């Protein structure tokens, strides 16, 4: 378990400044143009610089005396939840809606510890049936329901 202490504001500010710097680096390729005829780089470079400034300000003014809140950073929920979205994205086209739903719901529900797999499977099956009936048959969305075999 990782705890984020009062470093929080400093870290936030620095990463924002870093991002702003990255943006400015990217805009080196884009022409800036003139005030009358701004190029694609004009506004982004301006904003990137502003973000660097703001980030440094945030980092610099991070108050030390602030009461520190222990915020546990658990890895399990983000991995399971966001992973299930990625899994859904990767399996929908080839595996069809039903399989993609089953897989991603099973993965997502592993975010909560101590749920029996039978219960998770039941939820996945119910949601799969619901998704197919509401979206494909109800709303008529052009989504594949079944897996595609052999490139057909």
């Amino acid at each position, binding site marked *: 378990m990782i705890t984020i202490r009062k470093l929080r504001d400093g870290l936030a500010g620095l990463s924002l400044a870093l991002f702003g710097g990255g943006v400015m680096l990217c805009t080196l390729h884009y022409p800036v143009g003139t005030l009358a005829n701004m190029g*694609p780089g004009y506004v982004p470079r301006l904003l990137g610089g502003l973000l660097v400034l703001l980030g440094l300000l945030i980092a610099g003014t991070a108050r030390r005396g602030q009461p520190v809140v222990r915020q546990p950073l658990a890895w399990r929920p983000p991995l399971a939840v966001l992973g299930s979205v990625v899994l859904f994205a990767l399996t929908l086209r080839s595996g069809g809606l039903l399989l993609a739903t089953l897989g991603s719901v099973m993965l997502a529900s592993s975010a909560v510890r101590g749920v029996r797999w039978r219960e998770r499977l039941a939820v996945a099956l119910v949601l799969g049936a619901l998704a197919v009936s509401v979206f494909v048959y109800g709303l008529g969305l052009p989504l594949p329901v079944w897996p595609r075999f052999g490139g057909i």
Partner: protein
Amino acid sequence: MELIEHLALGFSAAASAQNLLSCFIGSVLGTLIGVLPGIGPVATIAMLLPLTYGMPPLSALIMLAGIYYGAQYGGSTTSIMLNLPGEASSAITCLDGHPLARRGRAGAALTVAALGSFFAGCVGTLFLAAFAAPLTTFALDFGPAEYCSLMIFGLAGAIVLASKSLLKACAMVVLGLLLGLVGTDVNSGAVRFTFGIRELNDGIGTAVLAVGVFGFAEILLGLERLHEHSTLTARCGRLGLSRDELRQATPAVLRGTGLGTLLGLLPGAGALMPAFAAYALEKWCARDPGRFGRGAIEGVAAPESANNAAAQTAFIPLLTLGIPSNAIMALMIGAMTLHDIQPGPQVISHDPTLFWGLVASMWIGNAMLVLLNLPLVGLWIRLLTTPYRWLFPAILLFCCIGIYTLSHSTVDLLLTAFFGLLGYLLQKFDCEPAPLLLGFILGPLFEEHLRRTLLLSRGDPSVFLSRPLSLVLLLAAAALLCTALTPSARRIRAQALTAEQDDAIADPAR
């Protein structure tokens, strides 16, 4: 009274059995779509278009319009219940709607949203009926310079909106502005910040960002907050409004309706502007702005009313000038031409039955929506008592399907997951996502209008000050920023900050 005569004509046309039925189907379908996150009314209207070929033009338009305002309506439900903006324009409703729901006041929030929307819809419709013809030029007076100043005003508001650190809010706005610039530059055709991903050429989708930063991040936070067998809210509370809440909400509804009605007339202002401006106005007038963001009923009433009022008055530039203010309106133009109606100044005079029939149907549709939604409030509340370990996979799944169907793109889904992570990290860093979303939506508009203004003025920036409307907006923006920096506003923010920390400290003990 010419107006009454016109409305009588409209109601007689809209009250036929077929038109009532299409109005009903449209608003029910719209509500359903609004409730399902990501699935936009655009895709639905496009799919239904062939079905309307066989209908008389009025029935077809009534149904499509019903989907449009029904979706506005339904989008607020998921915002309140799940912190999930079903439509991008209802993202503002999340700010106070969801905290209300977590405090067990979901019933009050939903009721206020329904009644406020109904009231605003009626006023907007009346406004449309009375002033459609004289107001056509208002939209034309708004040139690029005025839009640019309006965006600056909006960005100033986004900073004031912050309930925590001002500096972080500024940084979030700038970050949003930068995210909004991803994609093809309108002026030069150059592609910016896409890193070779073709799907990014048209920019990051609003729904992608909103569902990721608000919805997915909220699921992650919810999972941290809750224990194995818990539900989203411990108490259900009373369904109706208390007298206090009613007293607080009524003026907010009135102000929101007024502001939404005006902003709806501007086709270039973007979908989020009315709701957001109304929210900022409420916070600005409130005696205790510290309540906002933690479950203030005005924070639901005002943006919901503004949203719906604007949804009605947006028909003015559409019907009288043929200028769509969003993708749904563009679709309506397509539907009209397919039915041999040329949207433009002559619609009112050439086709009075159609114009007034459509106006009257909006009134009927809004009434149907209230009748439909108020009984549903109880049902929605029941949803919150479902164990969260069953509820969150369902939310996640519906989001995924919705995002995918937006443009049948796998990349969009991966991006949404990425923004979910970003939203989660931002929350951990105590940065608010609302200014980010506003910067994101206003950013491209700001850049486009800024560059166009300077092109047309041949590089002379004094146009912003020499045009009266633009000057007024810039002065208002300056005033807004000044009030945020006054000592009293600072004190309130500091209070909110410590209160938040008290909450956070108290949380683990719960």
